[in-house]
């Protein structure tokens, strides 16, 4: 982002959510409630789920059974009280873009018979300019540009925008959307009512979480500038394998847990590599996110739940 706040300011804005906390954002003010509070009682118009960073193919100490934990995540989704209208996967479906890894992911996620929309992580675009991922996981989407891996669609009055900020990364840089994608986004939003709720999902955080580890998008601010006129914007990212939130005006940012392995808090380790959880604690740091859209309200209620339940 062009106006980068000092790291301390960013960290002060980050609110760490444990399992079982409901987040609702109304008028730019985030409020948290314990599970079972009033937000739970309200009947949502529809809900959707975000999963992220399944890294099928990873088999190191941090998690030697990533298919197992993805399966557990799908099991949690199947057990939700309200069946989600759709699922968003915010990238790093695979670890190395191998056909067998895509197969395993598609099989485990597909078994849920849910409506799943994918954006790529950098681990998904390692072969042939990302074509295998795009063809396999975005074939049903109305592509914003051939091979671009970005698109949008509408569901129950909410406008969903899937962005790609993981290709053509530049030395020393962060995630990048690029001029063509930004032009498409401007066109996609042009003429849309400011009252329409917007959900943006992309792999790398659109806001700068921690530049020394590349956790941000260098032209993310240009996308946000196009979104600021809308009354309700929810930005959902993955990549950093932990829950963080920030609110700027009407834009609420959330990063999701991975279904595979945790990563350290910004700057808390020598590198952002996979972190080994204490024995028996792994599922407590993996998870899914349920988002409820309440009829007649701009706010989206967000529940992050760990795989430990």
């Amino acid at each position, binding site marked *: 982002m062009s106006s980068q706040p000092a790291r301390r300011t960013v960290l002060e804005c980050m609110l760490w959510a444990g399992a079982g906390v409901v987040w609702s954002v109304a008028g730019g003010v985030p409020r948290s409630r314990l599970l079972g509070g009033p937000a739970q009682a309200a009947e949502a118009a529809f809900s959707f789920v975000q999963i992220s960073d399944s890294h099928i193919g*990873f088999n*190191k*100490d*941090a998690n030697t059974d990533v298919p197992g934990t993805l399966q557990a995540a799908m099991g949690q989704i199947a057990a939700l009280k309200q069946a989600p209208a759709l699922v968003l996967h915010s990238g790093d479906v695979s*670890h*190395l*873009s191998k056909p067998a890894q895509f197969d395993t992911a598609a099989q485990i996620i597909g078994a849920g018979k849910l409506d799943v929309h994918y954006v790529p992580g*950098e*681990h998904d675009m*390692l072969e042939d300019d990302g074509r295998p991922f795009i063809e396999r996981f975005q074939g049903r989407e109305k592509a914003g540009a051939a091979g671009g891996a970005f698109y949008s669609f509408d569901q129950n009055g909410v406008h969903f925008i899937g962005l790609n900020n993981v290709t053509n*990364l*530049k*030395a*020393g*840089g*962060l995630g990048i959307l690029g001029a063509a994608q930004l032009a498409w986004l401007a066109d996609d939003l042009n003429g849309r009512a400011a009252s329409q709720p917007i959900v943006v999902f992309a792999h790398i955080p659109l806001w700068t979480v921690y*530049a*020394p*580890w*590349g956790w941000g998008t260098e032209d993310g601010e240009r996308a946000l500038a196009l979104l600021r006129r809308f009354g309700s914007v929810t930005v959902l990212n993955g990549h950093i394998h932990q829950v963080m939130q920030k609110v700027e005006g009407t834009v609420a940012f959330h990063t999701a847990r991975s279904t595979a392995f945790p990563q350290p808090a910004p700057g808390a380790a*020598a*590198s*952002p*590599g*996979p972190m080994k959880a204490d024995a028996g604690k792994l599922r407590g740091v993996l998870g899914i996110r349920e988002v409820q859209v309440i009829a007649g309200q701009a706010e989206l209620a967000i529940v992050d739940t760990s795989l430990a339940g």
Partner: protein
Amino acid sequence: MPGKMDRRALLGAAAAVLCAPHRAFAAEAAIEIKDFAFNPDALTVRAGTKLTWTNRDDTPHTVTSTATPPLFKSGALDSDDSFALVFDNPGTFSYFCSLHPHMQGTVIVR
């Protein structure tokens, strides 16, 4: 010629800069990829040196030339995978990890 561990055919531009017949007793040097960094991140070698990068992280990385078009690209190196190149001609060769672009390195060939 590049070592047999290369996972990608070099581009035409790379062939002009980097490829020459192997010398029988060429020098060798190693760069370790560890904790999301190239170690050492700056290295000066004599022309003819065979350089080998080895990934010691639990995360895949790449060795990708910053030149346009890139002079060399390793493709994804999984844990303990290696990528080798022989640098036959003097020059400064900058590279980065195309997955984690904050990871950067330079090879100076004299």
